[in-house]
């Protein structure tokens, strides 16, 4: 039995239990549903996962910092509204399909700006990120309603709503963008000074300050990254729908946090990685997709996901006794 645990694959799974879970649900649905194990369905899962997944990448950085961002759903809606609306501004009327470019750029800038506001307030006031972004969640949603006047916007340019139908080889373009972002953020977190600082700030803020890391601007950059990713997610979601509604992205912050925590990132900061987060979002994506294919009412997915979240927390507490599970706000 002992030599089993020398096996590198098994040892890796022990360290990343969420991937074991992904494997189990994957095998389960492959055996029990006729339509699950199918290249088209895998493409679907990746596209469905990309919306939550993109934000989860940013949330991983912010949570490793020991912060949290509850405003991502609202930021997503604001960016989507800008992306769809700006295209139809009169000043871009003669630009043809190029009118999409300033719209998307502006939407992404708005996302970065929202993140910068959150980050700046956290930095300068020293108020906890939970409170700052809870306020921003309400406030940015208010901005969405002010901007849209409670209306939905529809993309008049079909090149915009056709974008999500493109594929690059076997990969849908939305899935490709998501996977590229996974690689980029993984590289940022594991190979750069900024990534090392992210762990340092979350692990021991005092020590990070003493080591000469400028903690305030550092945290602000991570908030800008999550703002950018939330905006990107909003743009991609609006290409899928060809529209932006003011209530887009409600409750997404809860799904994202669920995915990131499933992936093993600690709320206390200092611990977590992108590989785990990818496992977390895939676990949720596969569960929702598979249960959908098996015609389980969507209601049960909520119960099962909630139970899994609590079970993971319980198992983590049982087996990783060295880590403190306490809330640090």
């Amino acid at each position, binding site marked *: 039995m002992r030599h089993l645990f020398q096996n590198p694959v098994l040892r890796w799974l022990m360290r990343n239990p969420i991937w074991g879970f992904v494997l189990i649900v994957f095998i389960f649905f492959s055996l029990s549903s006729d339509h699950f194990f199918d290249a088209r369905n895998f493409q679907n899962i990746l596209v469905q996962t990309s919306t939550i997944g993109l934000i989860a990448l940013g949330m991983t950085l912010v949570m490793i910092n020991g912060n949290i961002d509850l405003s991502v759903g609202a930021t997503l809606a604001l960016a989507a509204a800008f992306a769809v609306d700006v295209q139809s501004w009169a000043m871009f009327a003669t630009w043809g399909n190029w009118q999409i470019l300033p719209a998307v750029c502006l939407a992404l800038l708005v996302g970065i700006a929202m993140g910068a506001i959150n980050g700046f307030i956290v930095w*300068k*006031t020293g108020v906890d990120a939970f409170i700052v972004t*809870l306020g921003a969640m309400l*406030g940015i949603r208010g901005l969405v309603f002010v901007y849209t006047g*409670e209306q939905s916007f529809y993309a008049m340019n079909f090149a915009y709503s056709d974008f999500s139908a493109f594929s690059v080889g076997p990969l849908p373009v939305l899935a490709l963008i998501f996977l590229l972002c996974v690689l980029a953020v993984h590289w940022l977190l594991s190979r750069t000074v900024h990534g090392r600082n992210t762990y340092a700030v979350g692990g021991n803020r005092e020590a990070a300050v003493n080591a000469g890391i400028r903690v305030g601007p550092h945290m602000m950059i991570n908030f800008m990254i999550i703002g950018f990713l939330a905006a990107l997610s909003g743009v991609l979601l609006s290409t899928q729908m060809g529209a932006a509604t003011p209530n887009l992205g409600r409750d997404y912050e809860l799904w994202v946090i669920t995915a990131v925590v499933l992936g093993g990132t600690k709320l206390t900061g200092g611990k977590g990685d992108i590989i785990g987060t990818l496992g977390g979002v895939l676990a949720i994506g596969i569960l929702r997709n598979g249960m959908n294919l098996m015609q389980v009412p969507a209601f049960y997915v909520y119960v099962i996901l909630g139970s899994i979240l609590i079970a993971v*927390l319980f198992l983590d507490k049982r087996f990783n006794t060295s880590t403190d599970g306490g809330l640090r706000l």
Partner: protein
Amino acid sequence: MTRLKAGGPAIAKQGILVAFIVFMIAFSLMSDRFLSADNIMSVFRQSAIIGVMAIGVTIVVIGGNLDLSVGSMLSFATVLVVDLHDKIGPELAIPVMVLATLCLGAINGFLIGILRLNSLIVTLGMLSAIQGLVLIYSGGQNVDIVDQRGTWFAIFGRGAVFGIATPIIIFGALALIFHVIMTTMPFGRRVHAVGGNPTASVFSGIPRSRVVFMTYLISALCVAIAAIILGSRVMGSQNNVGQGYELQVLAAVILGGTSLLGGSGSILRTVLGVLMLAFIQNGLILMGQPYYTQWLVTWAVIIVAVWLDVAAKRGRLFSPIA
């Protein structure tokens, strides 16, 4: 003026009260309907549901934990009491619903108090799970009470005693009772101790697990009472009626100056936070603003209120972080 006196001037400690008065004066100058007795009564009545829930959440937060599941729990309790009203009658529906809701609170309390799991994640999971339970129970259908005029159940949301609407009386009475419990009784001191310093509280012989468990039971009880008011007022329920309430409630609690670190906070100041949010909403609508402008104002008010609080404690306005 970046350096404040250590401990802060007295006025900074009462930031919420000052802001409250400023807002009241500003609104009453801008709208002549604002300060009428009718309007004030209707604001009180509207704030009762969030207010009752905020009382329970304040106690949980003083104990050093969070409760994000109150929104789903409100959906659960309201759907249950409205649905059972026509099936087994209100005199049975109310106790059954209260018991069921207390069971949910007990699950929270068991996982967080006894097993010591992280409260944010547990109640986040419960938020999702309870929402699922509601949908399974109702089959995705909305529920309502058929005979709306003939039932005495109407008294909780629509009735009045001595000319004061029942929701206000329930809200006021609960606030007073729990304020007295939290400030004068041993249980209140224990909750403060557990939230302020868990380790020290265990060394002084306080049953930490049981105290935390109790705070979640109280929170569930408050949700059940809020559900009675809501169900009786609407005489029906959508199955996601409480969606988003958890964060509005938390916003009111934070505005009232209760520290998310635990150990400090007060029920009466939470009531002030609830009323302030309700008056901001009401005042902006009376001024002819669309309802969503209140969210923008709430954003600014929450951050400035907590900022002043934090600044007064550390004795300087800006954070010393580089």
